[in-house]
């Protein structure tokens, strides 16, 4: 299991000072960092996010993701593959195939600057897909994860048109062999769920896990409301971008380096 929040390496080395008190502080800080990285299961599994099965998702938590486009590997599609595998998607990329996360190339024609980034449901605080849904199927869970309730979805695709990120897909054909944790079927709209089934088990989304497994560490997942969470610390200290910030959606997915 990958911990929810892995501290970035560069943060784990505060400068030591000569006097004794400062050295003690340094050692303490070092112990905390070592605890967070060496025994993540104990620290994060037990304390930080554990929610009993009978307890509903809490509005005190807001799940978010930070994607560093500088670290995102050229041509690497680990996140996409991992998503397809976890959620039982076919991996095809035709106009009628479901894509919950896709790699996007962006290039500034003037400067020639080139970036690759994964684009997925941005889990907005004010999601347009929820605004327009005529049946209430499109919904935001208390912890900020935007989902489609397939029991209520009529497949009208209004949400697909409302989404500025092209994050949603309609299932056009009957499906078989779905994953037990990820029900999907014809006639319903679907999108990235932040791997809600994994998040509820205290794991990170499959894409994040794959990204760090492949050594890129371009994706950071965590609770935006927790000031001690690495994602919140990085967002506080470094510049990050919301895609289409002009729409005031307050996205849960943020990017660095674009």
């Amino acid at each position: 299991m990958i911990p929810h929040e892995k501290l970035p390496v560069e943060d784990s080395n505060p400068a030591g000072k000569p006097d004794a008190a400062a050295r003690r502080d340094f050692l303490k800080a070092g112990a905390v960092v070592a605890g967070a990285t060496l025994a993540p299961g104990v620290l994060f599994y037990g304390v930080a996010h554990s929610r009993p099965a009978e307890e509903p998702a809490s509005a005190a938590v807001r799940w978010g993701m930070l994607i560093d486009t500088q670290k995102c590997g050229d041509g690497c599609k680990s996140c996409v593959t991992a998503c397809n595998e976890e959620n039982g998607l076919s991996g095809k990329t035709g106009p009628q195939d479901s894509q919950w996360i896709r790699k996007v190339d962006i290039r500034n024609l003037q400067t020639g600057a080139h970036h690759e980034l994964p684009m997925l449901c941005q889990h907005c605080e004010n999601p347009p897909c929820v605004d327009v849904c005529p049946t209430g199927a499109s919904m935001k869970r208390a912890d900020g994860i935007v989902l489609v309730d397939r029991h209520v979805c009529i497949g009208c695709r209004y949400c697909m048109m409302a989404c500025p990120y092209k994050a949603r897909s309609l299932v056009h054909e009957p499906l078989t062999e779905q994953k037990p944790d990820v029900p999907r079927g014809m006639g319903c709209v679907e999108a990235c769920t932040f791997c809600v089934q994994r998040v509820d088990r205290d794991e990170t989304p499959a894409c994040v896990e794959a990204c760090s497994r492949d050594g890129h560490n371009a994706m950071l997942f965590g609770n935006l409301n927790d000031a001690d969470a690495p994602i919140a610390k990085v967002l506080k200290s470094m510049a990050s971008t919301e895609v289409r910030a002009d729409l005031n959606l307050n996205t849960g997915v943020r990017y660095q380096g674009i």
Partner: protein
Amino acid sequence: MMAKSLLKKGVGVLLVTVGGLFGLLSVAQAGVEVPSLPPAKVAGKCVEDTDFMRRNHMDLLKHHRNDTMRLGIRTTKHSLKGCVECHASEKSGSVASSKDDFCVACHSYASVKLDCWGCHATKPGKKPADHPAAALGATRAGGEK
């Protein structure tokens, strides 16, 4: 007089028709056998009494689906996944892929259409080791592909 005899005839015809229908009905009842359901993996240990489940499983499932989907409550007692894990048949490994499987056998007998399986998996999958349901027992071989 004329009207009376017509009325009598009418009643006669009606009686014959009703009698005929009853006859047909009894023939039909004799012809359809009560389905024999494949045994559950853990026999005699359903989450509620069998009689209660026969009448109310749909309400439990609907309640649980809303709790899980909307609120994120992930208890396993009334989850559809739990039903599938226990009731998938030995033969097909599924609750709904052949006509003898648990859900299909009873629903076709009762002539009630169900649409769970348009989206939900009919076969149990592999559970992560730390999942609470894993304590109930190992998954059946030949489960999810």
